């Protein structure tokens, strides 16, 4: 099958590769770029395990073709922490509040939380629940995930106030 050329910035690094046009973004990320943090759960865009941040939006990367991401700015779970390896407040809060068990939904969940807190830096619990409703978790019952996102929001806001 003929291939197309795609260029995109992934976790701050520019990449250029050729791929079959039908390649789904999740397969491109996992198999071509070896970014195996985003996972495949359902193939039907229900579970959100494949969530990445694309041009400032949460996107289920099993739902778009790689060509649709041409020229895009993408952040995956691998790019959420600081360049020096400092964990993002969400990563810390997930660890501290037992917001994960098997870990399979976690990369998508944190990546979604990362965008959610930029869309709404002070979410109520109800807003968090609606905000992550595109991401399924079978282990935690969400309670500690909601708590972790709330605590991360508080920490990010405190850090921001301190910086001002």
């Amino acid at each position, binding site marked *: 099958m003929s291939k197309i050329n795609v260029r995109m910035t992934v976790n701050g690094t520019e990449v250029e590769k050729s791929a079959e046009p039908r390649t789904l973004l999740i397969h491109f990320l996992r198999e071509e770029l070896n970014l195996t943090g985003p996972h495949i*759960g359902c193939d039907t865009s229900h*579970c959100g395990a494949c969530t990445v941040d694309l041009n400032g939006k949460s996107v289920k990367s099993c739902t778009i073709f790689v060509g649709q991401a041409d020229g895009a700015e993408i952040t995956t779970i691998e790019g959420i922490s600081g360049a020096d390896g400092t964990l993002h407040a969400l*990563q810390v809060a997930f660890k501290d509040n037992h917001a994960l068990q098997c*870990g399979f939904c976690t*990369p998508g969940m944190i990546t979604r939380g990362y965008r959610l807190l930029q869309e709404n830096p002070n979410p109520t619990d109800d807003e968090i*629940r609606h905000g992550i409703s595109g991401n399924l978790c079978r*282990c935690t*019952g969400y309670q*500690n995930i909601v708590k972790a996102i709330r605590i991360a929001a508080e920490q990010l806001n405190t850090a921001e106030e301190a910086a001002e």
Partner: protein
Amino acid sequence: MNDQTIPPAAERAAALQGLGSSRKRVEDARFTQGKGNYVDDIKLPGMLFGDFARSSHGHARIKSINKEAALAVPGVIAVLTAEDLKPLNLHYMPTLAGDVQAVLADEKVLFQNQEIAFVVAEDRYAAADGVELIEVEYEELPALVDPFKAMDDDAPLLREDIKDKMDGAHGPRKHYNHIFYWEEGDKEGTDKALAESDVVVEELITYPRCHPSPIETCGCVASMDKINGKLTIWGTFQAPHAVRTVASLITNIAEHNIRIVSPDIGGGFGNKVGVYPGYICAAVASIVTGVPVKWIEDKIENLTATAFARDYHMTGKIGATKDGKITALSCNVLADHGAFDACADPTQFPAGFFSICTGSYDIPVAHCGVDGVYTNKAPGGVAYRCSFRVTEAAYMIERMIDILARKMDMDPAELRMKNFIKKEQFPYTSALGWEYDSGDYHTAMEKAMETVGYKALRAEQVENRAAFARGETRALMGVGVAFFTEIVGAGPVKNCDILGLGMFDSCEIRIHPTGSAIARVGTISQGQGHATTFPQILASEIGLPAEDITVEEGDTDTAPYGLGTYGSRTTPVAGAAAAMAGRKIRAKAQMIAAYLLEVHDGDLEWDVDRFQVKGNPEKFKTMKELAFAAYSQAIPGIEPGLEAVSYYDPPNMTYPFGAYICVVDVDVDTGVVDVRRFYALDDCGTRINPMIIEGQVHGGLTEALAIAMGQEISYDAMGNVKGGSLMDYYLPTAVETPVWETDHTVTPSPHHPIGAKGVGESPNVGGVPAFSNAVNDAFAHLGLTHTQMPHDHWRVWQTAQRLGVTG
């Protein structure tokens, strides 16, 4: 001599982060950074990808399979069918239940999405292209979907391969679609007691077919190294050692030449206990091609072909005296096992531990019988986050108790309290033969009722019903009470085995010279946090900090033999093995300490992290010091090194219990059930890590919510699966999931080394009846006796309409 001040014992114990510590999980660093290593993350040089062509029919004869077009697809390397597997005698594989299952359909398909051909290609896209081009010509046959018609005289014959084999794995078969009949208890005595009872209620309680559906599906990577003759399979295996033994038996590859590795597993809940055709096909493909072959099922394949759960149709009958003392229980079950009996149960228990169905009650006489039948549905019958068939049993008895309470116009909590096994009756032998190790049911129930304000809730419900009657509200309030007793921790080798393998478990510990350690266990975490909690057990036993103990599991080349993780067996069995191995370490350390301190070993006592001379605590050796001595000193009569292994055969099961109360508001016009409040009190004995216990309860309750309120894998009359994707199959999001309230009492298991009982599955077992009782309770005053799960909006609305209360 040690001259610094010795910190107090409590301070030293806290520093170890042993039993009872809400230690943060060591697994989370990699998972939160996307550095987990799940099976689909494995990428080996030259690796191929396999995908299945599956049956479009529920029941049909295969007239022909044409591979030509598929083989012509660029990138497709090979296509396997039953004909290719026959020379290897691998077209059928043994199931865990003593049946056989077609690896690739042999002449007939028996359920929709059954595996027909395995296409092996350079990547998953080419494999999918090949699958599309496999041409199968079918002759459709009448499908058998209703289990109640399975044993009709004119029922379609499903299993032609065993039609003349009327002696099944569990005794004689009564019909060509019959699998087994299994019973327990005193039938005659039960019938008599029921006939003499003042009150008798009877009800068909259906627990629909559902699916564990972890977010990660099943899959594997098989790699045959032709140079050294070793087959390695990485896969989503909840029981890697059992997989190795089975693989060896069916392939004739010597067991030491098979290595099974369970990497990180993205949730199991029973789905990953079984052995599936994909594993066999990937292994055969790797042997044939000489390169690694990966197989990963997609979610639709997962929901429709691997490991359904439940599908129990239970007719309960319960009798009582006029003042509410239960006299007898009988339960007859029709179990729909699908096309092959691939139930995951210990060999001697074809209906699992269903005979725990007398629940938490002192019932003098009981009988249960289970008929298993074949239908044109997917095989499985796994324990979806529960011990073998325990959740079915708990659902049946907890619904029946509520139905009895309605009939007698008694409060369901009061009826339970009246019939509980009393604290002083433990150890208690049930009418169906189980020896309950310990319990304190009244205390748990009273605490639950007091915490939720049970009396006030019932008073509020009276007001709600009056307001509803006056037309002031369209919502009916329901209060669901459930009290469950589980039977977990399978199990004693004397009666528990899987394919002949005793259900013991194991732990091996090596203490390093500088006082840190590695422990290996025969289990495998799928999210339970073993790498965090096993070190806590060991920290309390051997006095080294939990953070200095690494846990490894899941690699059969390095881990000691064990039967894996399911049925809440890890803590009761492998957890006990860890404690016992720790005690062996301590015993040897005591001998070393005696030598070093120049006293008799009997003059030493253990104190948190050290041996000290009795009456002279200034004179001691810490475990860290003793570890170094074990590797550095020549001690007469003692071998160098500090290692231990324990294979633990539990003397009994453990019996966790709990009291759950659920409050719902049902909108009669939409059928929407709003869970206003859910309180869960669990007693799992000694608590190893309260944070992890609470997390397990949250997760299990959410699964219970899913089952009670929406999950069902149903089939139409042709055998087509009606809800085989996440479009239809209900997995709750954060929006539908309520806030859970958790609580506990502690009644340690008397026979477990640390008193722990296991907790992971309790919330699923107790949660389902609590939800279902709440929904039924909302309509009880309108004359409803029982309405079947799942209580989705449509069904609840139908119930309301039937009762004449819709707008």
